[in-house]
């Protein structure tokens, strides 16, 4: 009798979870967006710092990142594995297959005391190189070098190459987490001529594209995006809509209004989302409660 009750309870929990999945999947639609063209440039919403679950301590597979980028309204992503580029190649292959966002081959070179994000590269760059050699190699491969979350602890590491950085992360989820992080990133950026970059450094928490870069590129190709970063044609929106980047492009974006709006996606859950969350959590509680350890069996 007790076993029958257990089975019924587990089935009920499973049904709750299934209902949650059905509702969640039904409301999970990629936004339909008209391309934005300003000043003769295509405005591309991009996230240049993302990690996949294939050997790069991320939460989604490379192809999962591509699909999630579509759902978060991104036109381009760089998949930046730690010291490897294989997952970025898989993501690019998949995205080309489904006509998804532009995927740039990237790598995060996480050395001490500096983390460099290389994008638009063709081969993995050895992290054993010193930072000047790393950046020279990135440039030789046709890519751009971005200072990743350059908090104060990384400043000495970047000191020899401040004039050679192509971009610097000015918006990073750390600005919402640590007191003073925003000021640190601003101070670092003020000492370089590098393009303003907004990146989510997505590992699973937060949202892909939580911080994003608006690139004013000639077209949507990886080459055009890299060229635009090199030419500093970027705009980034940070906390409370604070704008960074090329002053003329910021004016253009503000006058148009669509770019600032795209910079702050609406993450507030709908009533259907709330229902799905409630059912899902209730279902999971039921399933865990029904899976007891051996002593209780």
């Amino acid at each position, binding site marked *: 009798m007790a076993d029958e009750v257990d089975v019924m309870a587990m089935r009920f929990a499973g049904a709750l979870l299934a209902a949650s999945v059905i509702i969640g999947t039904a409301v999970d639609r990629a936004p339909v967006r008209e391309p934005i063209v300003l000043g003769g440039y295509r405005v591309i919403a991009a996230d240049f710092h993302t990690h996949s679950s294939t*050997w790069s301590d991320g939460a989604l597979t490379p192809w999962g990142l591509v699909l999630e980028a579509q759902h978060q309204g991104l036109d381009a992503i760089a998949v930046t*594995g730690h010291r490897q580029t294989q997952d970025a190649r898989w993501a690019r292959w998949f995205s080309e297959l489904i006509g998804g966002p532009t995927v740039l081959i990237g790598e995060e070179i996480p*050395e001490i005391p500096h983390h460099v994000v290389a994008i638009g590269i063709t081969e993995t760059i050895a992290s054993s190189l010193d930072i000047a050699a790393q950046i020279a190699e990135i440039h030789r491969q046709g890519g751009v070098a971005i200072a990743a979350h350059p908090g104060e602890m990384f400043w000495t590491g970047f000191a020899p190459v401040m004039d050679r950085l192509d971009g610097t992360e000015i918006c990073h989820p750390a600005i919402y987490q640590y007191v003073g992080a925003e000021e640190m990133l601003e101070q670092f950026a003020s000492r370089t001529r590098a393009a303003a970059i907004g990146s989510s450094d997505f590992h699973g928490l937060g949202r892909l594209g939580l911080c994003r870069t608006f690139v004013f590129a000639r077209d949507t190709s990886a080459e055009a995006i890299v060229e635009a970063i090199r030419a500093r044609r970027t705009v980034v929106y940070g906390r409370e809509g604070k704008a960074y980047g090329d002053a003329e492009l910021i004016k253009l974006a503000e006058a148009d209004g669509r770019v600032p709006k795209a910079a702050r996606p609406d993450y507030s859950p709908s009533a259907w989302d709330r229902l799905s969350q409630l059912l899902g959590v209730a279902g999971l509680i039921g399933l865990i409660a029904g899976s007891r350890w051996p002593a209780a069996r």
Partner: protein
Amino acid sequence: MLARRPLLLALLLGCGISFIASGRLTLRLAADGALSFAFLPLSELAGFAVVYGLRRPATAFADAADRFFAGNTPWLWWLLAVIIAAIVLPPHRHGELGAPLLITFLIPTVLSVFIDVRFFRDLVGESRGRARIDVALQRLVSWPAAFAYFLGMASSSRTFFYLFVEIGDEIAAWLTKWT
């Protein structure tokens, strides 16, 4: 029988990733999350298989493995708490979960050891000391395998060791904020 509790773990991981990454439970993200974190049940199974091979209990491997995975129950509750926190907090505040996660990580780590020691004692009628060795052996196989896969190439650099410094800093910053 083998697949029941390992699949439950995979299901929880998939659902968790979906909720945490998007605030929604979708088939797309749950399947992707379950695949992404399949290395966890697989590495646990590998560790258990080593101990099972050494002890050769009377219970069939599939049945024993399923019962062994019941030791994950504290982890499942912990994961559920993480999911609820991620649902409640707005995405830009998810970073605040880092330190509490790292601190509370210890609770299921310790509890699951107690459960697993008891499991190995029941399984082959071992002494407490021998059961502890089995748990340690299982962890010695499964945890490094899981970390090596998850961290990948980063685990072979100096950065890997620096990770522990960063974890310490993260916890210290959080404790300072709340004291």
